[in-house]
Every structure is written in C-alpha cells, then in structure tokens.
C-alpha cells in the first residue's frame, strides 16, 4: 500500500498550537507512508488539488488527512480522492483540531498527540478495503405529517414539483394554529385570508391525497421505500356523502360540547364542522358529547342529513401508503397555564390565553370578532398582557424562549386598540425579543402609536376584586411594585412540543430533545434534515417558530425531498453491518438488539439458522457488532480488525501481551 499523509494548518486554528511540519515529518516514518506534507488549508481548492496531484504523482493508494472533525469535511476529502481515481473509503481522517489544537495549549504535547492520531489513522487505512455502494429504486411519493402552515407549504411545493403527496392531519381540518389566528404580525393581515387559498389549493391539487382526522400508526421501511400504516379515525359521518351543508349543526340538541377549534371559548354542537373555511369541510361527531353515545338516543342529525351521511356504527379504519420520503410537520402545543397557581391556575374566567384572545378577536370566532370577556360578556377597557407564561422559566421546566410571543402580544395590543379605541393595554415583559424583519418597528408602533404601556417585570399574583382582576407585578425599571386593575388578563403562553411528539418520533426513528422537539441533523447546516435518512422536518415540531420561519422550513423540506427524488435510484451507504455466514451460529442476538429491525432471520441451504442484514435498512450503528458472540457480524469500515489496528498503533506495548 502507498499512503499519502496531509497535515492541515487550518490557518492558525491548528498550526497555532501544533507543529504541523513536525507531524508530517514523523508520519514519513510510518509503515506504508510514501508521502507526507503539511498544507495551509487542505479543504480549499488548491489544498484538494494538492492531494489529487500527489495521488497521481506518487501512485498513492490511500490518503490520510489530519485536520478538522470528519463531520465537517470527510465528504469533501472523500470526493477529492474519488476524483483522483481511488475508492473513497481508502481515506482516513485524523481530527487534530477539535481533539487537539482547540483543547490544548501546550504545543509539544499537542504535536505528540497529533502524531499519535495520524499514526492511528494510517494504521486503520492499512486495513481498509474498497467499499462499493449499492443502488436501489425509490418510490417518488412523499408523506407529510401535519396540515399546519408548514405542512401545507411543504405539500404544495412537493405537489407542484410533480410529486405525489400524502398529507395526514390529526384534526378534521388542515390549517393548524394559523387558521385560528385573527391577524398576523408585522403586517396585520388577516390570517385566514392568506392561509385560506393555500388550504383550498391543497384540497384541489390533483397530486395531493389528504387524510384528515387521521394519524400515522406505524412506519416501516427506509429511505426511498417507506410503508406507512395510517389510522383513519372514525367521524361517524360518511365523508363521501357529507356536503358540509351544516344542517346537522343547526339541529344538534347537544350545544354544550367543548369547542376545540375555539380553545374552549364558547361551546359548539356535538356534530360540527370546526370553522367555516375548514378543509375538508366535513362534519364530525364528538362522541364525548353526542346524546346518541352518552344517552343512547337522539339521532337528530341522522334524520335531518339530506344525504344520509350519518353512521353511528362507523369505526376506525386503516390504510397503507407507500412513500419514499417523510416530512414531519406536526407543529406545537401551547403551554398549560394551570401550572401557574399565582395566575389563578385556570380558575378565573377573565384570565385567558393568547390563543383564546385570538378567537375572541376573530370575525369568524364565537363572538363574531367583538371582544367580550368570558365572565359577563362586557367589553374590557383595561387589558393586561403577561408575557413569558411558560417561557424562560426553569421552575416549570420551560427554560427556552418561545420566540413569537413578544410579537403576537404587540399585535394583540394593537388590535385591542383597533377593536376598542378607548381601551388601554398593559404588557408585562422580561425583554422584548423582536429580531425579525420589520419586527422591532412593529413593537415600537404598538408602544408609540397605540399607547401600549410596557412594564418591565414579572407578575407575581393575579386575584379577583369585585368584577376586576388585580394584576400585581414588579416594575423593575422603576424599582417598584405595581398593581393594575384589569378587566381582562391575557397570558402569552409559550410553545411546547405537540402532544404525542415523542411517540411519533419513535415511530419515525428520529431523535427529540428533552422537551419533545425533534432534533435536526445539524443546528446550522442541516436544519430540516434528521439523522434518519429520508425523514425531514418542517415548522415548529423542530422548535418554536413563527409563520415566516415555518413556511420557509416547509419549502426547504420540500426542496430536500425534490432533490432527493431527482434521482431514480439511491446509493446505499456501504458502512453497514455484514454477516460472515460461516461464523454465524444463528443465535439472533443481533436481531433482538438491532434498533432498526435491519437484521432478518434466515436459513442457509443446509437449513442452518443465519442472520442477514438488509442493507437498505441498516443505519450502521454497530450495536449488533458488539452483541455478536462470534464476531460474525462486522460493521464495514469499522471492523474489529480495523479498530484493533488503531488501538495497537496507539499502545503497542500493551497489545504485545495478547
């Protein structure tokens, strides 16, 4: 073997605390190393050309680059050696930046450690073998989970790009949180007016199949070839027949049903269409309130339905869809303010959440857009907004900033003045976070033109006195305690991960953080990818996001799917587990431990039990490798021999004893 070693300075990042020339000199003495040099930036165009030229001039058959982390530039250098005609797995990388120069100041010790790491890489390379990726066909259909604005955007972009889209929505209508909003910041345009047409486009697009009131039950398969089981939850209404006329809602005698769409502001009927612009505009029976289910008799809706769509016997059904990629766009939920006893823990009717306030202001809401407080229906004159309810508060395990509450509070204060010109709005805030385009100007407008009084401090107590709510808090700028008599208190509740988010993540085999938000593959460079190939993220399921960011991510995820599907076949990663059938004793410990279900039980031609790895499912985690008592299953590119070669290089004296 003829190995070339390249030691990168990374400007002064590495060269500042590592003697790169000395490392290169030392590498010349390693077995099979025929060329070693130090280079200013190995990843730069001239740096890569230098590697390619050396391969040609010195007839190199393998390359070691000592530079940054492989997460950064391993693909870069693999492509470079491939361009020079080598197999891209005949390349090893030693991380002498994150593991050496950035963490130690002693140049001599750093240089010695860098030499050790390069020696290990060279030793591993000596045991490497060329690996070839296999190709497989992909199913160019995409599943989008969640019909909020992020999911809608992703669905429309994919559909416009010619892909078949399966959109699964948990509730009976798409639209998500945005459909509930009255207006949007910073332009104060009507939320439903800008979202509505997109929702209609989803309904009418020939490439989109919409499953509303449905949930993903099970996900099998792998990138390019997923099999999805979808549960179509029963609505007790045959949607093929339902025309959305709404006659059933007029006649339903059970008028005290919880109104999910209006977040409990007002009530609705047991059979209902959630809102006028719903897509699909179909009725559903809420069995918890329907008299047919609670008392066993009624059936008024069945009698009045002109198309005979009502069916009390209807049950959940299941459908299976095959897709090649998945976009999770499951959004977020709002913090439950019952965790704040000092704010009344939800027992005061005139202390409401921001989303309830949106419904009170919305023209299509339960009060037809007239702001009436829940307790007595009076128009409030003093409205107090409290920010950071369930945001930036460790005591309720929500240390993160929800990001959009400062903006929607400014918007709600502006709208309050528009609705009730003689009203006054007070905002208790910690800091105003308004870093978006035209955002800070918008907050200033709320303060300067709409006379919103911003008070910097937390609220310690809300209590009723007469028909007022007394809001007591600190004014930290004045250094005083303040009390405001409010007619209505609006809590700017923060975002938390959607209910059931971790369970769905486990079905999708993607990671989530300790708050249930889905983990992107890289926080900066791979914001819509996950670590599971073929699964992408859009919107607030990845972290709290406002509408522009959610739409941006929806389009970004769609672009990722479209670029994935621009090929007819995909290459599988050859760094996967492989069973040496002659050593396998068929104990199937690997089958039990594989987190991806990638190892299958099989029989050889003598009917001996053997394990086999399905290449397209294996993610190369290596769990099976350490489980196998026979060392029969080996992770390619990380075989026992390759790893032991590295260990041996690092501690030769200890290995002699074996």
């Amino acid at each position: 073997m003829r190995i070339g070693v390249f030691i990168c300075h990374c400007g002064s990042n590495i060269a500042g605390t590592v003697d790169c020339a000395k490392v290169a000199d030392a590498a010349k003495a390693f077995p099979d190393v025929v060329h070693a040099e130090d280079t200013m930036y190995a990843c730069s165009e001239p740096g890569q050309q230098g590697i390619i030229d050396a391969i040609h001039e010195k007839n190199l058959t393998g390359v070691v680059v000592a530079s940054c982390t492989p997460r950064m530039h391993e693909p870069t250098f693999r492509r470079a050696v491939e361009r020079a005609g080598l197999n891209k797995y005949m390349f090893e990388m030693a991380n002498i930046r994150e593991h050496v120069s950035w963490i130690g100041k002693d140049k001599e010790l750093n240089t010695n450690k860098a030499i050790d790491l390069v020696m290990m890489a060279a030793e591993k390379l000596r045991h490497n073998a060329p690996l070839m990726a296999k190709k497989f066909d992909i199913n160019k259909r995409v599943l989008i989970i969640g019909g909020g604005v992020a999911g809608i955007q992703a669905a429309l972009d994919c559909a416009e790009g010619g892909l078949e889209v399966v959109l699964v929505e948990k509730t009976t209508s798409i639209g998500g949180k945005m459909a509930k909003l009255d207006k949007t910041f910073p332009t104060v345009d009507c939320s439903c007016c800008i979202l509505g047409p997109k929702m209609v486009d989803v309904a009418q697009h020939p490439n989109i199949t919409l499953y509303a009131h449905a949930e993903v039950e099970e996900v099998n398969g792998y990138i390019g070839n997923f099999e999805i089981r979808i549960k179509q939850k029963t609505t007790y209404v045959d949607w093929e027949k339902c025309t959305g006329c709404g006659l059933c809602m007029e006649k339903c005698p059970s008028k005290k049903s919880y109104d999910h769409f209006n977040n409990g502001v007002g009530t609705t009927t047991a059979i209902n269409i959630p809102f006028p612009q719903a897509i699909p505009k179909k009725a559903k029976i809420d069995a918890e309130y329907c008299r047919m289910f609670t008392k066993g008799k009624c059936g008024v809706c069945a009698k009045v339905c002109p198309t005979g769509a009502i069916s009390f016997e209807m049950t959940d059904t299941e459908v299976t869809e095959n897709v090649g990629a998945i976009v999770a766009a499951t959004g977020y939920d709002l913090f439950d303010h019952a965790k704040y006893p000092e704010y009344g823990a939800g027992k005061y009717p005139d202390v409401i959440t921001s989303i309830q306030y949106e419904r009170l202001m919305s023209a299509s809401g339960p009060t037809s857009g007239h702001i009436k407080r829940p307790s007595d229906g009076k128009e409030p004159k003093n409205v107090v907004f409290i920010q950071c309810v369930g945001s930036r508060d460790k005591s309720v395990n929500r240390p993160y900033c929800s990001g959009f509450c400062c903006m929607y509070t400014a918007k709600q204060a502006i709208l309050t003045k528009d609705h009730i010109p003689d009203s006054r709005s007070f905002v208790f805030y910690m800091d105003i976070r308004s870093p978006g385009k035209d955002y800070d100007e918008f907050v200033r407008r709320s303060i300067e033109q709409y006379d919103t009084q911003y008070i910097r401090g937390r609220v310690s107590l809300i209590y009723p006195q007469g028909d007022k709510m007394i809001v007591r808090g600190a004014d930290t700028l004045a250094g005083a305690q303040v009390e405001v008599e409010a007619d209505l208190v609006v809590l700017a509740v923060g975002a938390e991960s959607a209910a059931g988010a971790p369970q769905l993540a486990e079905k999708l085999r993607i990671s989530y953080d300790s708050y249930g938000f889905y983990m992107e593959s890289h926080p900066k460079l791979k914001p819509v990818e996950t670590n599971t190939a073929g699964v992408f993220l859009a919107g607030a399921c990845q972290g709290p996001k406002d509408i522009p960011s959610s739409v941006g991510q929806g389009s970004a995820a769609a672009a990722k799917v479209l670029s994935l599907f621009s090929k007819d076949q995909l290459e599988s990663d050859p760094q996967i587990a492989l069973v040496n059938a002659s050593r396998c004793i068929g104990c199937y410990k690997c089958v039990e431990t594989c987190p991806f279900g990638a190892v299958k039980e099989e029989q050889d031609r003598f009917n001996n039990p053997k394990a086999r790895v399905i290449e397209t499912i294996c993610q190369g985690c290596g769990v099976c490798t350490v489980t196998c008592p026979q060392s029969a299953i080996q992770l390619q590119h990380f075989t026992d021999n390759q790893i032991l070669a590295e260990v041996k290089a690092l501690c030769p004296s200890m290995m002699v004893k074996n």
Partner: protein
Amino acid sequence: MSIRISYYPGCSGKGTSSEYETSTTGVCQALDVDLVEIPDWSCCGSTPAHTVNHVLSSALSARNLTLAEQEGFDTVTTPCPSCLSNLKIAEHKMRKESFREAVNELLDQPYGGGVDTKSVLQVLVENVGLDKVRERVKTPLEGLKVACYYGCIMNRPPEVMDFDDHEHPMAMDNLMEAIGAEVIPFPLKVECCGASFGIPQQNIVTTLSGKLLEVAKGLGVDALVTACPLCQMNLDLRQGQINAAQGTQHSLPIFYFTQLMAKAFDLSDAVQGMKRLIVNPQKALAKIGQADKEIA
C-alpha cells in the same frame, strides 16, 4: 389508633394566642393525638434572634429539637408557623456540617440532626386524615362562609417546608370543608399580613392586612380562618387600627382553624376560646345551622 407526637407550643401559645393553644390541644385530644410537650422548651429563635445571628437562632431551635430527640421522638409538631419555619430551617441548615458544628459549639448537648417538624395543620391533614375529622364532627358548620388565610411562611420556602402547594395551598380549605363550613377560595391566601412590622412601621401592617380584609369582604365571607398567631393578631387585634388608617369599617371575625374545629366537635367554651377574639364572632357563629333552615 392514637398518635403520639412531641409538641412545641411556642411562646405566643402561652400568651397572646392562648385560644389557639387551648383549641389545638383540645382538638388533638378529641382526635386521639397525644401531644407530649417538650420538657423545659425554650424560644425557637425566630424574629429577634434570626435577624441578628443565624447561628444563634438555629442554636435556639436545635436545643428544643435535641430535647425532643432525647424523649425518643423523631417528629415535633407546633401550631405556630414562625416556630415551624425556624425549627425546620435550623434542621435544614444543620445538614451542612460546618454550620452544624458552629451551632453545636453553643449548645451543652449537641444536636445530632434528623428531627422533623410538622405544623399541627399538617399532622391533622396527613397523620389524622380528613375522614377521621369528619367522623368526629358533632355540629357541622353549615351556613358559615369562610376564607382560609395561610400567611406567607406556612408553605415557604417550598424546598424546606415540603407541605402543600406554596402558591395555592388547600390543606386548611379541605379541613374547613370537612367540618361543614362553606369555603370560598381566597386569592390572597399566601400573601403577607405585614408580620411584626406592626411595632416599628404600623402603616405596613395596616396597608397589607387592610388589603386582605378588603378582598375577604369582597368575597362576602363571614370570617377569615388563620393558622398563625401573628397573622391572627394583625387582622384581629389591629382591625381597628386598619379601619382608622384605611377609612374602612370592617368587622370581620378572625378565627384560628382549631377554634372552628373545636366548635364543630362541640368542645367546651374554654377550649374554643371564642371570648378571647377581639372582633366579636357571635354574628358569624350564629349563622351556623342557618343554611338548613333557609332551605326548609
């Protein structure tokens, strides 16, 4: 099954709040709780001592805990939240070795640690239980509308007090409901009454306690129920001062919760100690039993 527990009455129980003391011991006796008074108990070290020196304050508490330990008890109960707070904080602080050593230097007999303190309220709710209280009721307080006021230190700081919700406690509310009273949720149930500022800066007490009375009045209750001698004194004894300072005309009886329990248990007048209250409670007490009659 009777409960035997070490008892720390505290100084106010033997003086200003003797009606709390008589009703506490009476109610406990009626519920088979054997209160064994700590022999030769001394000051808990609250207000005056702990404003000057934490080690001294904790030493005063630790002396009493040691005496209880010597009697073979691992738990002490006290009706007074100030005593409760100081005894518990002393125990909590002395889990740190350097602090324990400093305290023990002041004591003849070193405190070994590990003696828990509970309020009488906690013992009644947790150890005796609401069912047993309900069983013992002879005259349910039906018709009496009350709000429960816990004061600011009964449940705070939560990591030391370790009982009930520190912002929204319910123990006393549940207890009052168990003896038949109608309990109106009191939004200021854990607010400060002004505490011992009644002496150096009376206006703090008249403002803060005045607010409590104002809000209670707005709720339409017949009385406030307290568990703290200092709160009770500020609200009851100083109600006249509050009225003078705030220009109000409150006449709201302020009971100890144990007094109302004694009432419901039909214990003697001496145990109930109603005569020791400053604001005349007769009008409120006369409502007991009236609710039924109205319906009839």
